[in-house]
């Protein structure tokens, strides 16, 4: 059985939740099916500019067919259009279609390939609902497609233009129960066969031992892993943390791991370590008091699952239904919606080591039960096989 995975970017060096999920799934499905990835030449999700060469190639032994994006995106134009015609109002259909065109990636060669070679594949699995490759691509091959939307409660999910995407495919694979509820609520598509699958956690490398095996940061600390960006809630996190330190005088550090896209204050108890290897990340997680995710927009949150896999409790943004859902189902974390709750939750967690240990254990059990790779693999295998037979 030949299965094509269609995604906006693909490669070992591509950073992104959906793209990483697609790559991990592809590398596991290759055991069962003849797989091929259809994607763009882009590595940068802002401009979609060609980075790789178009045509057939390979990544980690997986056949990858790349298509050029023409023209690349102009972010200034996209942002100006969004500000003027989309933000704070209900955009008209023509505006929604224009937004989709500006969103990109405009990869007409890929769309043309889908149209011409649709019969050469038994099934197409599309990742990420909101990009042009899925938006138009799925509509070319609806009768032999599966959708992995990776949706969350963002303004453009309410666009009318996405209705066909959530009704046409043979099946939909969600990352969380909350994502499924959100999509069913907006698109009334519960009749479309679906499954909540999520993602497994990748195996950590062996930790690299330094000259003394010491961590680059003194305990105790709370840990954030991910893009350090205002849009990820990091601005609010830093403000709350500084205020918390002033009020309590605690000897506590906030450690941020990841690429920085915002200014961080010069503060002796706020440390940015940049991007670290998987082994070092694991060690930092295992030694943290609490893992923290301040983002309001998450469809799964791999960093949350990784924190629990490392056996530590989490503190998350209570405005994210996905993150709150994880905490309530696992009993592995607390959540906040304002500073008062943030500081009390942190105090509760920091002053009770036995509670932290128990919540960490509960979180780890939750991940092993629901997000182990063999569980995820089984679900994908079942759904792909069933969808191709119908």
């Amino acid at each position, binding site marked *: 059985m030949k299965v094509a995975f269609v995604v906006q970017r693909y490669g070992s060096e591509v950073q992104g939740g959906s793209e990483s999920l697609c790559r991990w799934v592809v590398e596991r499905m290759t055991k069962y099916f003849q797989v091929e990835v259809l994607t763009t030449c882009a590595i940068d999700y802002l401009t979609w500019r060609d980075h790789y060469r178009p045509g057939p190639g390979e990544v980690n032994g997986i056949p990858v067919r790349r298509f050029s994006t023409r023209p690349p995106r102009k972010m200034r134009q996209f942002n100006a259009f969004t500000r003027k015609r989309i933000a704070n109002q209900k955009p008209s259909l023509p505006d929604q279609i224009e937004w989709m065109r500006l969103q990109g990636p405009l990869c007409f060669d890929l769309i043309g390939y889908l149209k011409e070679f649709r019969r050469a594949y038994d099934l197409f699995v599309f990742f990420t609902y909101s990009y042009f490759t899925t938006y138009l691509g799925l509509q070319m091959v609806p009768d032999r497609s599966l959708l992995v939307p990776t949706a969350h409660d963002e303004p453009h999910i309410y666009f009318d233009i996405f209705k066909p995407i959530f009704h046409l495919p043979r099946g939909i694979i969600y990352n969380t129960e909350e994502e499924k509820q959100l999509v069913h609520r907006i698109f009334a598509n519960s009749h479309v066969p679906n499954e909540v699958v999520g993602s497994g956690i990748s195996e950590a490398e062996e930790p690299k031992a330094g000259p003394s095996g010491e961590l680059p940061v003194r305990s105790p600390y709370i840990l954030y892993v991910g893009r350090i960006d205002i849009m990820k809630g990091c601005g609010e996190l830093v403000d709350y943390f*500084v205020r918390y330190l*002033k009020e309590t*005088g605690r000897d506590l550090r906030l450690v941020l791991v990841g690429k920085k896209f915002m200014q961080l*204050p*010069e503060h002796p108890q706020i440390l940015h370590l940049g991007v670290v290897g998987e082994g070092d990340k694991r060690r930092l997680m295992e030694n943290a008091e609490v893992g923290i995710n301040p983002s309001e927009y998450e469809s799964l949150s791999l960093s949350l699952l990784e924190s629990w896999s490392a056996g530590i409790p989490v503190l998350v943004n209570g405005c994210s239904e996905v993150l709150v859902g994880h*905490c*309530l189902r*696992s*009993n*592995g*974390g*607390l*959540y906040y919606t*304002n500073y*008062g*709750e943030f500081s*009390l*939750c942190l*105090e*509760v967690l920091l*002053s*009770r080591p*036995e*509670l932290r240990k*128990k*919540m960490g254990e*509960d979180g780890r059990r939750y991940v092993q039960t629901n997000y182990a790779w063999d569980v995820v693999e089984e679900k994908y295998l079942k759904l792909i096989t069933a969808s191709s037979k119908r």
Partner: protein
Amino acid sequence: MDTFTINTEGVNVAEIMKQIQERVLEKKKAGIYTDEEIREVSELKKQLSPQKEGAYGELALHLRRLHHNWDVAASSALITSHRKVLGPVIVALKKVGFRVFRFIGHPLVIRQTEFNAASVRFASVLMEELSRLIQENKDLKERQEKLLREMEERKRMEARR
């Protein structure tokens, strides 16, 4: 935190969050500050806020600039002209004029330089004293907060008896 009842045998996040949210609501209903916090605010010295720490950082930057630029006697002027044809003539004239100015104005330049040096020394001493006071203020505040926390703890224990 001792007034939170948390069962670590079987953790129930929903129950813990209910207690936390109730506590936050109580604080809000009682007004922004509790009695303890009102006393704390009135007794504490003003701590430097992040904005003020920013201003302190700016003072340090200005002092560094002063250190680079005080010695006008030692500074040299780069004499140039953008004109292609008349340029060399203008440069020669400027050089002569600059030498005359230095000859006549030398005592003034020296006095200015001495004044600049004294000002920079004064500013440096002020910065040192300011740094010392900031640190002292921070230490006193930490000590005061620690004492207030101990008082609060003692009050709670007495109330339980």
